[in-house]
């Protein structure tokens, strides 16, 4: 009887682990539903980086990759082909124009080049004093004058500084701009810090992060306008909208405080119960048994 049972179980297990697991419906299910979006892409190797870091390249070309690796783009997975086009997965076609390779832009094409992704900022820049001068003379400040070309860092108010601005003009007006932007910028920085802290503490901040990102991106467009009065009037609007995010953040911190207090309350209850039970157990004389 037991022998028959064991044989049956073995046969059923073998069937399940070999035949049925290879059934075609399962393969289709795995490929189309489960595997595709989550499998690690094979061959995620960029031909651009391989070639530009090889010894056959001169130092200047190798430096481009080193600079990019330190950039905000690299931190956000924006790779060579996202700006320069081409086919990074295929070394032989990586610089093919048929595969969308754009190479390095001409000086005059830089705003268009960067504006492929940064659309709103590009329009804002082109309407600004900087942009107009650039379009008229092709010599004014373009994107890379302030932001650099490969070691591009996260845009912040620190970019408005005497050293950079005085390359082309005096610092007075830029300083006035910086002062007008300061309050909102510091609010944004605080919100960003708080959101990161809340996230580490396990609070879902998706909605606030989206609102922050929207405000942050829109506020950044003001940096390019170089119109101090416009900046001052719009800053108060941003302040109000940021206050809504701040109040939600405060609510989250209150929720964290409640969690801590509630846990502390339970902790105290169990300390009390431990003492009571301990004394009770000691009250029983071992000789009783």
């Amino acid at each position, binding site marked *: 009887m037991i022998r028959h049972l064991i044989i049956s179980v073995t046969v059923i297990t073998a069937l399940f682990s070999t035949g049925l697991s290879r059934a075609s419906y399962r393969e289709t299910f795995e490929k189309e539903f489960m595997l595709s*979006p*989550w499998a*690690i892409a094979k061959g995620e190797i960029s031909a651009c980086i391989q070639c530009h870091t090889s010894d056959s390249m001169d130092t200047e070309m190798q430096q481009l990759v080193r600079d990019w690796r330190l950039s905000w783009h690299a931190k956000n997975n924006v790779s060579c082909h996202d700006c320069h086009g081409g086919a990074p997965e295929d070394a032989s076609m990586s610089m093919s124009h048929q595969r969308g390779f754009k190479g390095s832009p001409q000086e005059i094409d830089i705003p268009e080049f960067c504006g492929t992704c940064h659309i709103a900022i590009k329009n804002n820049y082109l309407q600004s004093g900087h942009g107009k001068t650039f379009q008229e003379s092709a010599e004014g400040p373009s994107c890379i004058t302030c932001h650099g070309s490969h070691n591009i860092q996260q845009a912040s108010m620190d970019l408005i500084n005497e050293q950079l601005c005085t390359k082309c003009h005096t610092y007075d007006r830029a300083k006035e701009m910086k002062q007008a932007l300061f309050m909102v910028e510091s609010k944004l920085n605080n919100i960003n810090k708080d959101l990161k802290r809340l*996230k580490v*503490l*396990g609070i879902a901040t998706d909605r606030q992060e989206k609102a922050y990102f929207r405000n942050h991106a829109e506020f950044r467009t003001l940096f390019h306008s170089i119109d101090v009065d416009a900046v001052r009037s719009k800053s108060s609007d941003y302040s109000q909208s940021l206050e809504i995010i701040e109040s939600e953040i405060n609510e989250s911190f209150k929720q964290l405080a409640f969690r801590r207090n509630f846990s502390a309350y339970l902790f105290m209850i169990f300390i009390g119960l*431990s003492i009571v039970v301990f004394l009770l157990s000691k009250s029983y004389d*071992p000789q009783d048994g």
Partner: protein
Amino acid sequence: MWARIIHWIEVRIGIEELINKHLRQFRSPKGATFWNTLGFVTLVAFIVQAVTGIMLLLYYIPHPEHAFKSVQTITNDIPYGWLFRLIHNVGGNIIVAVIIIHMVHVFLRVSYKRPREITWLTGVLMFLLVLLACITGQLLPWHQTGFWQTTVTTTIPSFLPVIGEGISSYMRGGEFVTGITLSRFFSFHVVILPVFITILMLLHVILIRRQGLSTSPVIEPETDASPPDDFKREAHPEGQPCFPHFSLKRLFMVMIYFTVLFFILTFFPNLFLPPEANIQADPMTTPEFIRPAWYFLAPYQIIKTIPNDVLGISLLVIFSVVLMFWPFLDAKDAGRNIRKRPMLMSLGLIVLALWIIFTIWGMYS
């Protein structure tokens, strides 16, 4: 009226009889201490895990696109969802710690010897299954920490010759950690492992009830003169009734378990949830540091330290097998008092010390 209700229930269920038979007549050994209650604490901790796990299951969605979001919803939107999640998370770690301390205690008391070999074996098997439950559970929230810890953990068996790749591939359901791994781990975590752990736990408890709790070899000299093939239950006539004496000791240790649990929840709620545990799993972004959970740091560091992967994994497999069958290896009648067995004591303490050293090393390497 009240007395009549009690009587009505008593006639049908016989609670008094149950208490008498299983708690008053069942006696704990003379000199039983709080250390003897750790098995019971493990049982309570397991029930806590089961209850909180069921609560989490009400809202959890085992799918790569929804798992992280559903856990976030549990933690942030469901009333007191954060409490159940944190208890389950911290409780899972405490249960491992309690089992380890329980096993060390049983080893040092040499309580695994005849007739308790199978009790020890079921205990070690349960411990290994609890570790598997921890491994499978850490992937379920589909966060960066769990995803990459699973990637590392499921790579370790692949070092085994011949069958290693097969085991890794079976665990992952393919070459990489994917949605298949998640659904596989989910079914193991919520159904298969709890069922096996419960069966082993029942067996463990039945064996303890049959054999009686083991006497401390230091307090009560060994008097067992029965032939090897005869069974003699340790009735402990000089001991105390399990209820209320020993039950109060158990209850006290359960209170300590909850105190430790809520101490961690109050002061270190994110002790077992590093910052990456709040980021959705991203197979394309490897975190800067990937370390397994604290209870896997020692084997992880052993494999890292030994240059030959096959040798490293083989050592761990041999250690697990030796641990499981230790009562059969230490079968000769050399007595149960470990103080009179310096070799055994040295062996136990050296293994324990090495384990601690490798854990600390793994933490800082």
